[in-house]
């Protein structure tokens, strides 16, 4: 038998080589697993437990997943980008394989047996003639306080048993049986309650603050003011609310910044000062004859994270040491930012993760952690819990950036695409804490000695930010992709699920649909003809077959197709939308086919894709951050409606089986394809093309009026 060449250390293990930082065998027969990635509502903790159980050959019920903390957990950066299985999963597989081997070596020694004949069943290591030992018996003899080597051999695919199955999520029982798991429910004895006063006028500074009325409220612990940052700390949450309202009445604000005209967003995006980057170019081998050029502009508005729970954090100071409980996606990075703001060494701060409500990107989690730290400093060793309001969450957390995308397609005499230019205008999609100066936390920009607020940056290819998914996967002979990153940012933007991918896929897939329609060619056939990647073709073929593409035309009903490979290197996803359209659009059914590589938990992957499809439907039909020239006005659910139960389409997800392939992540793959599929279905139903999201009543009527 050939020995396979040892794999390189996975990136997370290379950064955190200590085996004991990942794994521990407890005396009571459990395995304690410490991933650096965190649960953000995506079910990752269960999938990682499956991987550990599989690789160690223990029952899943023996695995205890430890919440990530800077005190003990490996540093795995940010839980984002559909990378948790790729990074944390690979790391755990590797670490568990190595640990398993160390125990087998020790067991062989103890049992006097050849390592090759040993078997592990639920943690018991069995040799010939009924001799056995276990991980727990040997744990003192196998110190894990040593570095991982590259000499571990994770099990080949065929020997895996727990991964690849739909085990139930480990966190769900607590959530249905009212056991507190969320940070919002973390209420240790003696906890105080804080609230922060935030301006309703965008960018306004706190000029004057009369604290008298707030100070008169019972249960006062402290009122904190530092420049434009102001907040209250009270014994009870109720009193903190009352005091905050009193404080608001005593506040005088400056005029703030002028916001763009929400009804002319694309002009604003295309006129602001910007930095141009050519993202990618392909040059044709011969110069084709261009018969004509079709130019179209697509856009999306600012989109709110709109999690059901407003952000929350708890902090406690002990002299100059701080403990923070947070639902951040990046505990280590948050710690660096907090230390910078406070002028403390990072070692003085422990940041511990607790679950928040669904996290779809850089929301208010990190900001509220600094709020809690600043308020807790005034509370003499007692924990302070700070809860943002719905309005704080909907107006002060970063938004997904608005985008304008123009595509110009050169066609030859036969209507074939011979050239393609894709231009993007909009703010960057990244202003999350990244460990670099300055700290990116909201309150840091409000202090008397403020840190500057940077304009959002762009994540570079191969992942891309605003340009995510902008490079065509189709075999056009030439293209140019360019991005105009705005150098002003009146509305704060950062990473939201799929970043620029949603709008770029919407634009590309709409444009292809327009060209296919002009050619009189079936849009699925047209795509298949231009896609060299067999895995890409497979998801389109699967979804079209499943959805009986293309069903017979019925009045008022439309079918549309959308496809992308997320980030051009992640999961493949194709979607067919069936909609009914009159003066409003109702999505009746979404059919998705996805290739996510190796699947750790099929139901978990389907849940993520299905959730992404429904969220995309909500974005596509309803969502738009609203503002006048001074305020974000969509501060609550009535001004920022999201899809309701009565509006939710049926969703079917088909997963292609690729157990031998690298896992590709699933969380963000559906957003672009579903948005595009809905837009294309609207055109199919009405012959009217809506190019500006959301596809609401006004946009639809306008498109019908403009239709040829």
């Amino acid at each position, binding site marked *: 038998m050939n020995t396979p060449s040892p794999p390189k250390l996975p990136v997370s293990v290379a950064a955190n080589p200590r085996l004991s930082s990942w794994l521990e065998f407890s005396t009571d027969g459990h395995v304690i697993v410490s991933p650096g990635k965190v649960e*953000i*509502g*995506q*079910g990752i903790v269960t999938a990682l437990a499956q991987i550990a159980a599989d690789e160690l050959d223990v029952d899943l019920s023996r695995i205890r997943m430890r919440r990530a903390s800077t005190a003990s957990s490996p540093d795995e950066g940010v839980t984002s980008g559909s990378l948790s299985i790729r990074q944390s999963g690979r790391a755990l597989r590797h670490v568990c394989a190595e640990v398993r081997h160390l125990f087998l070596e020790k067991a062989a020694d103890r049992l006097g047996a050849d390592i090759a004949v040993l078997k592990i069943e639920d943690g018991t290591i069995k040799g010939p003639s009924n001799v056995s030992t276990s991980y727990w018996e040997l744990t003192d003899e196998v110190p894990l306080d040593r570095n991982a080597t590259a000499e571990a051999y994770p099990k080949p695919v065929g020997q895996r048993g727990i991964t690849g199955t739909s085990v*139930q*999520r480990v*966190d*769900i*029982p607590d*959530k*249905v*049986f*009212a056991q*507190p*798991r*969320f940070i*919002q*429910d973390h*209420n240790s004895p003696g906890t105080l309650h804080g609230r922060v006063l935030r301006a309703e006028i965008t960018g306004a500074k706190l000029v004057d603050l009369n604290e008298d009325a707030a100070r008169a409220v019972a249960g006062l612990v402290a009122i904190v003011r530092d420049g434009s940052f102001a907040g209250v700390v009270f014994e*009870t*949450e*109720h009193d903190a609310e009352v005091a905050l309202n009193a404080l608001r009445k005593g506040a005088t604000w400056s005029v703030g910044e002028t916001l763009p005209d929400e009804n002319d967003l694309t002009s604003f995006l295309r006129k602001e000062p910007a930095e141009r980057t050519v993202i990618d170019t392909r040059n044709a081998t011969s110069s084709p004859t261009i018969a004509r050029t079709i130019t179209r502009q697509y856009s999306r508005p600012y989109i709110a994270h*709109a*999690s*059901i*729970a*407003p952000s929350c954090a708890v902090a406690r100071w002990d002299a100059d040491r701080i403990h923070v409980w947070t639902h951040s996606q990046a505990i280590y990075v948050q710690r660096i930012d907090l230390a910078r703001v406070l002028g403390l060494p990072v070692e003085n701060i422990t940041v511990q993760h607790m*679950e*928040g*409500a*669904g*996290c*779809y990107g850089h929301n208010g989690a990190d900001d509220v952690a600094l709020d809690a730290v600043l308020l807790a400093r005034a509370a003499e060793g007692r924990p302070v819990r700070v*809860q943002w*309001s*719905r309005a704080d969450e909907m107006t002060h957390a970063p938004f997904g950036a608005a985008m304008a995308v123009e595509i110009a397609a050169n066609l030859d005499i036969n209507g074939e695409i011979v050239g393609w230019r894709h231009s993007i205008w909009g703010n960057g999609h990244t202003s999350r804490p990244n460990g670099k100066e300055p700290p990116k936390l909201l309150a840091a920009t409000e202090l008397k000695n403020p840190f500057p607020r940077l304009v959002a940056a762009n994540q570079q290819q191969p992942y891309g930010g605003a340009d995510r998914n902008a490079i065509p996967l189709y075999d056009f002979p030439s293209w140019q992709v360019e991005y105009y990153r705005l150098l002003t940012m009146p509305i704060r933007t950062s990473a939201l699920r799929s970043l620029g991918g949603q709008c770029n896929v919407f634009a590309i897939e709409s444009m292809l649909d327009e060209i296919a329609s002009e050619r009189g060619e079936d849009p699925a056939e047209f795509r298949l003809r231009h896609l060299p990647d067999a895995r890409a073709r497979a998801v389109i073929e699967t979804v079209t077959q499943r959805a009986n593409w293309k069903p017979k035309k019925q009045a008022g009903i439309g079918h549309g197709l959308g496809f992308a490979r997320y980030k051009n290197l992640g999961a493949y996803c194709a979607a067919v939308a069936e909609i009914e359209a009159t003066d409003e659009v109702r999505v009746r059914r979404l059919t998705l086919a996805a290739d996510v590589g190796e699947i750790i938990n099929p*139901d978990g992957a389907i*849940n*993520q894709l*299905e*959730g*992404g*499809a*429904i*969220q995309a439907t*909500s974005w596509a039909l309803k969502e738009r951050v609203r503002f006048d020239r001074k305020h974000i006005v969509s501060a*609550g*659910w*009535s001004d920022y409606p*999201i*899809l*309701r*139960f*009565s509006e*939710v389409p*049926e*969703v079917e997800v088909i997963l292609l089986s690729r157990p031998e392939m690298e896992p590709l992540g699933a969380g963000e793959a559906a957003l672009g394809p579903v948005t595009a599929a809905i837009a294309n279905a609207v055109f199919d139903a009405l012959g009217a093309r809506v190019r500006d999201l959301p596809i609401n009543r006004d946009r639809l009527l306008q498109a019908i009026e403009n239709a040829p």
Partner: protein
Amino acid sequence: MPQIRFRLNGADMSVDADPDRSLLDILRGELGLTSPHFGCGAGECGACNVIVGDRAVSSCDTPLWSVANKDVTTLEGLGSAEHPHPLQRAFIAEQAMQCGYCISGILMSAAALLRQNPSPSSDQVKAALDRNLCRCGSHNRIVRAVLRAAHEMAAG
């Protein structure tokens, strides 16, 4: 301060508090429960839903005085891991959530529905849950779970 009496999950309660304060505030504050979740404070999302009498209401905009002498049920009172309500079993069986923050309110809306209508159609479930928001997109699983619980209850 007047004393307001009501029954919480079957037990008699008496609270000394401003009667205009919200029920959510009292449940999470004085009474230390964690299942009714704060989501918006305006009765628009359903995360704080509880059952008062036999109806699901948003506790964030229900004043304390209005529940005087009434029965209030929260998720803590619906069932337990040892004695689960069929809805709790069904939500586990259907893996009917992603983050789960909205689920306690949704379970209470669903429990109130099944008390009034033990065999709802899918559309009736959706109508009953229409004031509950879910951001993760678990709606279809949730509807399936409610229907599963109804079937189980009908089967006895």
